[in-house]
């Protein structure tokens, strides 16, 4: 088939699309590389500076990961202060969700199916290992008020 001006234009557009896609892909490739590098350095089994005995007896640096994944939510007048938000947590790490509310309610972490009572002056505190990947809703059970979406990846 003889190439027409139209088909050449289509081909050029196609080439541009491929180039754009390729550019995007290489950009992402670098991100992936960086991410896996970081993962390698924090892994105590790989990192020579971490004593092997510490790594095997303590449940993987509990104090630091709790501090790193402590999520606090405040409910005032039946509403979440600042609105619901998305919080990312790495898969397999410990998370603590603290909810303070001016009403008596129940906090529910979906998927993990965890429940905790909350009351004025008595915050709800939920600590668990984020071992199911996905995005999970955390809400006040009775009023269906969404507190946050927990992204575990």
């Amino acid at each position, binding site marked *: 088939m003889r190439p027409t001006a139209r088909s050449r234009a289509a081909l050029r557009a*196609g080439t541009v699309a491929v180039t754009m*896609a390729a550019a995007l892909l290489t950009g992402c490739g670098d991100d992936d590389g960086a991410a896996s590098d970081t993962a390698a350095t924090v892994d105590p089994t790989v990192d020579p500076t971490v004593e092997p005995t510490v790594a095997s007896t303590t449940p993987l640096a509990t104090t630091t990961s709790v501090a790193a994944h402590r999520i606090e939510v405040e409910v005032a007048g039946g509403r979440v202060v600042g*609105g619901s938000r*998305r919080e990312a947590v790495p898969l397999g790490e410990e998370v603590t969700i603290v909810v303070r509310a001016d009403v008596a309610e129940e906090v529910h972490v979906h998927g993990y199916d965890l429940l905790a009572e909350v009351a004025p002056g008595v915050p709800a505190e939920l600590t668990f290992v984020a071992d*199911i990947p*996905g995005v999970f*809703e955390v*809400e006040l059970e009775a009023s269906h008020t969404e507190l946050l979406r927990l992204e575990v990846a």
Partner: protein
Amino acid sequence: MTGLVGLGGVLAHGVGGRTDLPLPLWLFSYGAGAVLLASFAALRVLWRRPRLREAAPGAALPSPVQLVTLPLAILLRGLGILALAVVFVAAWWGPDDAGANIAPIAVYVVFWVGLQVVSALAGDVWSAMNPLRTIAAPLPRTTARADPGHWTAAAMVLSFVWLELAYHDPSSPRVVGTWLAAYCLAALAGAVWWGRDWLRHGEGFAAIFGLLAHLAPLHRDAEGRLRVRPPLAGLTDVELRPGTAALVFVTLGSTTFDGLTRTETWIRLLGDRTGWAATAVNTVGLLWMIALVAAAYLAATRVVARMAGRDPVEMAMTFLPSLVPILFAYTLAHYFSLLVFEGQNAYVLASDPFGRGWDLFGTIDWRVNFTVVSTDTIAYVQAGAIVVGHVAGVITAHDRAVELFRPRLAERSQYPMLGVMVLFTVGGLGLLLGG
């Protein structure tokens, strides 16, 4: 609460409320790149003469297989009426607790998502099951009144997607029961008004499942024989009626809206609204998304009509079947994980549908296994479905164009169609990024 978050509410005391991780950017880029490439390639490599219509009748299956159709039809009809009765009783009189009641999961997951998948893969199973048709059997087939086409179906599907995606408490068993009763009454009133044959296409679910069944390789001919046909060939015999476009836009727009509600942008927009305030915002968002999908498609077919010197409405109708694969792709991309995870809860609750402490099938203590498919698999299914759906849409539209137009016009007329399909696909993938 919206969308799958709404379904989070469904399983308030169960093990639900999970939505998918954002699609990785590299997968989005691959998908979008593949779609652009496939679209441009399609114009060069696809056939010049229509092929799908002649392939549509397919081949009849051998006669031993035909023998199963009657017992299968009776079984499915019984199953349909039993399922409706169980869900209805559970919704009204079962525990008023979304996680302990089978009705919400049965309706939103097993019925709405499950039957879309079954219809697209195995054919129009719902037409054999439809309990409304069983109930309406004594009514006359037709009346003297003019048939409303697919308009009633579009309105009925809208009522369902509004309940699921916009209403603030979709998971309450009593809410599901109320809606179900209203829906069945409306459908039976329609059957009285227009005759029971109206239930075949004028009732929302019969219409949408019937439309998706045109994707399936299995179908039944006028004599009721089972036949196999090549993929997409069935799209050439979609019955286009007044309102078919509205039906497609409502369904496609609702899935798109569901994707939108999972994004960071929408969470911020919704802010701290709850109850009817959230419902109001969601309703506007849902209608807006349906209008956006409709506007994009109608703009493209209007350009085609101008190029071809044809009527814009005729062009909008004639290319509608090419949206059906995209519609199914959106459903798979958005609800695949829901079906495999929450579907397990239906299995659990089937042991005790009325909350009486029964354990009919010994499954009551089962918990959802979130490892049956990995998050990687889910992401590949999502991106794969949307890309394959796009290519199928492009092929279907191309085949229709070469059927209608001379070769040069057929090729030119596909630029606007490609434009709108690339928009739907990249938009659909983009919403999965969750940004």
